[in-house]
């Protein structure tokens, strides 16, 4: 295999990543070497990575994990007593009392599956969740890949298609390339805060059936990157649609604890499904995804997530659980998951600090969302829908014709060129909307607003300055 012709065509088909982040890293390195730039440091808010932007981790989580890693600390009195108790309990769930052992089963540590199931049951007002339906992995994308692998089949007109929101999470298109599933976009309605439109779902499905076999529909709620939080009516419509068209529902709900819009509440698809009565709740196949990377935990680098499989055939479930065999999920993130679903309770030593930290994060997020939205809407050539949840804003850009032409000449998409220039001129790294599926002239950028307010302020000012300059230069 010493040439391209021997490489698996499926791998060849994976689109090139945009690599703005590596450019950002290179520029940071150059600054460290003493090179002069028009800015002091690079701020990268292109991905949902709050720690990178400077948001602090949750103390309780980090303390418990540290003790689990180094159990000598169980004797350390400077750690609050509930930290030590929780660590002891979690270590008891690990084989050999060590986070260095493989998980007891390939789906994960049984006691933690149970904790997660209990959390889901509580969250959904009593709708029962079975620990056996919980499968852990090193990140929600990984678990998603497992399911997509199952769905993947056929070629050309028989290839499996996935109805995918436009815009979608920026990591999804490459994943679909890798597993050989066709991305079938359904447009979200920008004017309505990126809401789902049932007619558009029907249109997309009908069009898709002409050239592939759509088998599943992907939902992101709260939306990544849109920040839209779906209401009950929407969720019910989508479920009915999926049921009648025999589509598997893949519901990514990783930002469920980051909802801040006024009067907005997170509703889980599972809860709504079960409230729709037995004809739906006993037949619609659904997989829900959650992760520690998102929300208030923001522990992207730890790599932990889970999926809950609902109404899944036993054979399929067995296959999913055994597919993990070759790569059992890491232990420490499962412990972090356990902390996420079982935070300190009132009365616990760490409760006050913990609650404070969470409150602060959510408040910061809400304030940032509002501030950034107002700010950007006031910039000529930009418009932004308000975000109700999640960690991104996804403003629309008007780009001058010259930029578009320059982009064509250099073989880049215009929004990628825009982001590249922004990075080089102002040291701000944002994500181009083409990664989220917007590959026409409908230019957007995404920025992560889960950052310290001062950092975000800096980003906004630099962005505005750049955008005005770009428009000015070409007039």
């Amino acid at each position, binding site marked *: *295999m*010493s040439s*391209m012709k021997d*490489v*698996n065509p*499926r*791998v060849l088909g*994976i689109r*090139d*990543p945009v690599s703005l982040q*590596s450019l950002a890293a290179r520029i940071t390195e150059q600054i460290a070497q003493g090179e002069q730039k028009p800015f002091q440091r690079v701020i*990268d808010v292109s991905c949902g*990575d709050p*720690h*990178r*932007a*400077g*948001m602090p*981790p949750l103390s309780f989580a*980090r303390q418990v*994990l*540290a003790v689990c*890693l*180094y159990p000598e*600390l169980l004797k*350390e009195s400077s750690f609050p007593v509930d930290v030590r108790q929780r660590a002891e309990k979690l270590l008891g769930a*690990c*084989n*050999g009392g*060590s986070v*260095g*052992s493989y998980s007891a089963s390939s789906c994960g540590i049984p006691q933690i599956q149970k904790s997660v199931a209990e959390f889901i049951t509580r969250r959904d007002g009593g709708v029962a969740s079975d620990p056996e339906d919980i499968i852990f992995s*090193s*990140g929600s994308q990984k678990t998603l890949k497992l399911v997509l*692998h*199952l*769905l993947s089949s*056929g070629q050309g007109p028989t290839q499996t298609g996935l109805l995918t929101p436009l815009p979608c999470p920026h990591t999804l298109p490459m994943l679909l390339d*890798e597993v050989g599933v066709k991305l079938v976009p359904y447009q979200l309605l920008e004017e309505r805060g990126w809401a789902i439109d049932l007619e558009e779902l029907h249109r997309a499905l009908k069009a898709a059936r002409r050239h592939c076999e759509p*088998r*599943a529909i992907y939902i992101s709620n709260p939306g990544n990157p849109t920040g839209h939080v779906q209401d009950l009516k929407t969720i019910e419509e989508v479920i009915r649609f999926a049921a009648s068209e025999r589509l598997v529902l893949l519901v990514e709900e990783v930002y469920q604890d980051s909802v801040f819009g006024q009067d907005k509440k997170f509703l889980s698809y599972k809860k709504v499904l079960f409230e729709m009565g037995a004809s739906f709740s006993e037949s619609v*196949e659904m997989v829900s995804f959650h992760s520690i990377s998102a929300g208030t935990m*923001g522990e*992207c*680098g*730890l*790599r932990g997530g889970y999926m809950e499989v609902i109404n*899944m*055939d036993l*054979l*399929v479930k067995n*296959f999913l659980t*055994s597919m993990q*065999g*070759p*790569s*059992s999920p*890491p*232990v*420490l993130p499962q412990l972090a998951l356990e902390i996420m679903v079982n935070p300190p309770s009132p009365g616990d030593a760490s409760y006050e600090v913990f609650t404070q930290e969470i409150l602060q994060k959510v408040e910061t997020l809400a304030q940032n969302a509002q501030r950034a939205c107002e700010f950007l809407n006031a910039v000529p050539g930009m418009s932004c829908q308000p975000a109700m949840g999640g960690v991104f804003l996804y403003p629309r850009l008007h780009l001058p014709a010259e930029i578009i032409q320059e982009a064509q000449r250099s073989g880049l998409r215009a929004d990628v060129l825009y982001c590249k220039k922004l990075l080089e001129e102002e040291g701000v790294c944002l994500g181009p909307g083409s990664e989220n599926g917007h590959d026409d002239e409908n230019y957007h950028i995404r920025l992560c607003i889960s950052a310290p307010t001062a950092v975000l302020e800096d980003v906004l000012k630099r962005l505005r300055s750049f955008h005005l300059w770009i428009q000015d230069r070409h007039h």
Partner: protein
Amino acid sequence: MSVLQEISSDVRNMKQMENFVLFRRTNEIKEELRRGVRKSYREVIDVSWGDPHRAGVKPLSFVRQVLAACLYSELMDGDKLMVDVKQRAQRLLGTCAGGSVGSYCATAGIPQTLQSVSQYIMRRDGGVPCHPENIYISPGSQWALTNILKVLVNSEASPRTGVLIPVPCHSTTIISLTTLGAVAVPYYLREERGWALEMEELQRALDSAKGVCNPVALYMINPGNPAGYVQSRKSIQEVIRFAAEKKLFLLADEVFQDCVYGKESEFVSYKRALAEIGAPLSDSVELASFHTASKGLMGECGLRTGYVELVNLDPAVMKHINNLFSTNSCPILGQIALDVMVNPPQPGDPSYPLYLKETQHIRASLAQNVRRVEEVINSFPDFSCQPLEGGAFAFPRLFLPPKAIERAKEAGLQPDTFYCLRLLEEAGVLFSPGTEYGQKEGTYHIRFCIMTPSDTMEEILRRLSAFHEQFMKEFS
């Protein structure tokens, strides 16, 4: 009928892994013990995995202290931790975005960690150059292996892609191959010669693939798993020449390179051997070498971190490999452990005395275990163990009496699974059956992890001996 079941041929073709039987029964027995059911043992000793911590080996203090400090930096206040722990943690945190182990990192891994790993490889291989751009850190070596296989294997191709694999071979690789739609082409290691690899056998295996599949790669495990051999330099070079001649991509699974204890044995990496052969082979044979933090003295399986080094790959192909690896991010904590693994405390460092003590203890226990296992197993006429030279397992052969084989068949089980099940029931010891790994038709083996505290191994051998005598008597 389920949408997913309808369309996925993988689901339709999946066969129940024998392992499930043992696994399920283990859980049931643990539950029974918890409820106070009386058995001749108080706890189940599970040595079916390559998981030293599960078996009771303690983690190395230095690595855990560094990890804890990276997770919760307040730990570095005061004197709780030694100076070199703090320095290491601070340096490593400095390499993480936002100074937090909670951030994403670059596709191939944290650049400084990649540097450390490449320097380690150079030292290990006596100076053979190693470039960080050829290294990808991954959540576990199997994950990296699966990705490389993904590049090599075209599941839609006709004829199908073939990969030569040893018999016996550890089960996770077999599963990966099957999932990718590749054909496993077995080459049998010669048990009676200490599981030696014979070139005629490799040729035979390759010939057997004619008309069945298109073999593109040759997968080697050194040191072995489950069999405990360590390949000689000469053997490795023979394999390399074979691969060069037959245009096969070499996949060298070297995760047990730090576990070599045979008196005459020395670990030589495929990369080093390749370099020593010299041009033109050293510039053309394509090689992927795999290593991990899960094995060796650290045994940090739960952290899920490994890496692959790619040698002599076409730059255009490397670009696509990069795309493939970028679809998943690598755990930061594991990379920190990896950094410690390739850069352990040195003489003169404050943590060195404890580090030395702990690693020496693990090595001594391992050496003791090896001696005792060979002694005890070989003392039985119907049980034999090839000399253990490296790796973390023993893979002795069972000479089962016909009655036992009959009984197994009646129960719908493979004979070695049957033995393991009875061993579990009656002695509370969990091994895994040779069936999982492949073995010559009509032969039976069992595998168990030998990286355990010495007294645990004594207990295992005691229970095993008592059970074995009983079992053989019952079916004589």
